[in-house]
């Protein structure tokens, strides 16, 4: 497929690999789906393979697995307490999925699953869905007290409740847009600067010398993007934990 090699948007293009059409719906297996499968496969394989020794003294890989496991466990316990630990598999899945998907995006020619708003929004809706679903399941209608902060004078309570509801409804949006925008903007910036290197090199000797600047920028941005990839996975997971806390402890 021919395209302008410096086009920063091309990397987000979705292509059908196996077209699947059910009724009016297009459920084709795309490159996005392929990288979702790869994300899951690689993450699972890594977690499984590194723990194969079940070492009392962990190997390097096992340490990484154990660290991420205990890191997520502590994150959830700090945010939602012991009662929130029943969501540990859920939070760990989200953290690992987003982290590996983000890191996959750092490999050249790989598709970044989390750079598509629909994917992050679906994940965010899943989180909010679990919060609302578990909240009503566990506390019934009393769960709605989550929108009524204690210790607020009666006359401003309607206003506060309205603010709380709006803030709750904006959670899936902020949660998904934060991850999506970070990944998208980072990859575009990276591609733009890398594109400068190519365009300038085409201008002759002076251009090649001048292209050192965007090249250095690209290197620096690559490092930054690795940081962003890990950080955004952490932020997504930590916010998930805090939202789950509302499901477990609606009175705050």
């Amino acid at each position, binding site marked *: *497929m*021919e*395209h*302008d090699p410096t*086009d920063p*948007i*091309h990397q*987000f*293009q*979705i292509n*059908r690999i196996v*077209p*699947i*059409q059910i009724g*009016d*719906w*297009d*459920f*084709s*297996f*795309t490159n*996005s*789906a392929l990288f*979702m*499968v790869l*994300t*899951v496969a690689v*993450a*699972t394989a890594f*977690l*499984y393979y590194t*723990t194969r020794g*079940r*070492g*009392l003294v*962990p190997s390097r890989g*096992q340490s990484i*697995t*154990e660290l991420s*496991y*205990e890191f997520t466990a502590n994150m959830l316990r700090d945010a939602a307490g012991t009662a929130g630990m029943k969501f*540990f*598999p*859920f939070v*760990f*899945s989200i953290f*690992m*999925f987003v982290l590996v998907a983000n890191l996959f995006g750092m490999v050249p020619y790989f598709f970044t*699953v989390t*750079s*598509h*708003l*629909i*994917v992050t929004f*679906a*994940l965010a809706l*899943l989180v909010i869905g679990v919060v609302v679903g578990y909240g009503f399941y566990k506390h019934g209608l009393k769960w709605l007290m989550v929108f009524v902060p204690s210790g607020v004078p009666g006359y401003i309570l309607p206003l506060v409740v309205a603010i709380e509801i709006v803030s709750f409804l904006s959670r899936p949006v902020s949660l998904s847009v934060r991850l*999506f925008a970070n990944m*998208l903007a980072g990859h575009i910036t990276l591609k733009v600067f890398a594109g400068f290197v190519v365009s300038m090199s085409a201008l002759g000797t002076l251009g090649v010398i001048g292209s050192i600047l965007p090249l250095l920028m690209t290197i620096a941005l690559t490092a930054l993007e690795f940081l962003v990839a890990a950080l955004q996975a952490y932020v997504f997971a930590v916010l998930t934990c805090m939202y789950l806390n509302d499901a477990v402890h609606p009175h705050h």
Partner: protein
Amino acid sequence: MFVTQAFAQDGETTGHLPPASDVAAAHGETIHVEGDHGGGFPPFEPEFFPSQILWLAITFGVFYWLLKTVIMPRIGGILENRRDRIALDLEAAERMRSDADEAQAAYEQELTAARNRAHTIATDAKDSAKADADKERKRLDAELNDKLDAAQARIAQVKTSALAEVDQIARDVTDTILRQVASIEASQDEIASAVSQADR
């Protein structure tokens, strides 16, 4: 919109959606310049939303299931195992330390007992040696006293006999002098009394 066109064309053709480049070509240069992604911004193109949601649901569902049933019990087991092992080792270390403490105490006790025993033996030996020395000294004292007594008795006896001989000599001398010088015949008894009187 692009999507509706794509679906519209899809209905006419063999069921495959036409590559975006075909559409772009149909629209001419202006669209082609933007690349082969059909002119839209891919993350906001709803064309692939159902597909992405479906595949995300499938992959994330499988991932969640795998982590929950296989991976996490595995990691949890490893960590649990390690915790147990550390607790067990600490317990064993504690037990060994108390054993060592006991051994130390027993050693100290044994040492004290041995020291006391040694002291007793030394004292006994000293006492018996002293007693032996005293006995020997007493025996020697008695022996020397006996010898001294015998010597004194002997001296007294010698002195007595010497004195007796002095008396006899004096009588003999007196007898001889009387006889030779004075030509007086005196009896032995007269001489003896005279000598004994002269002694005073």
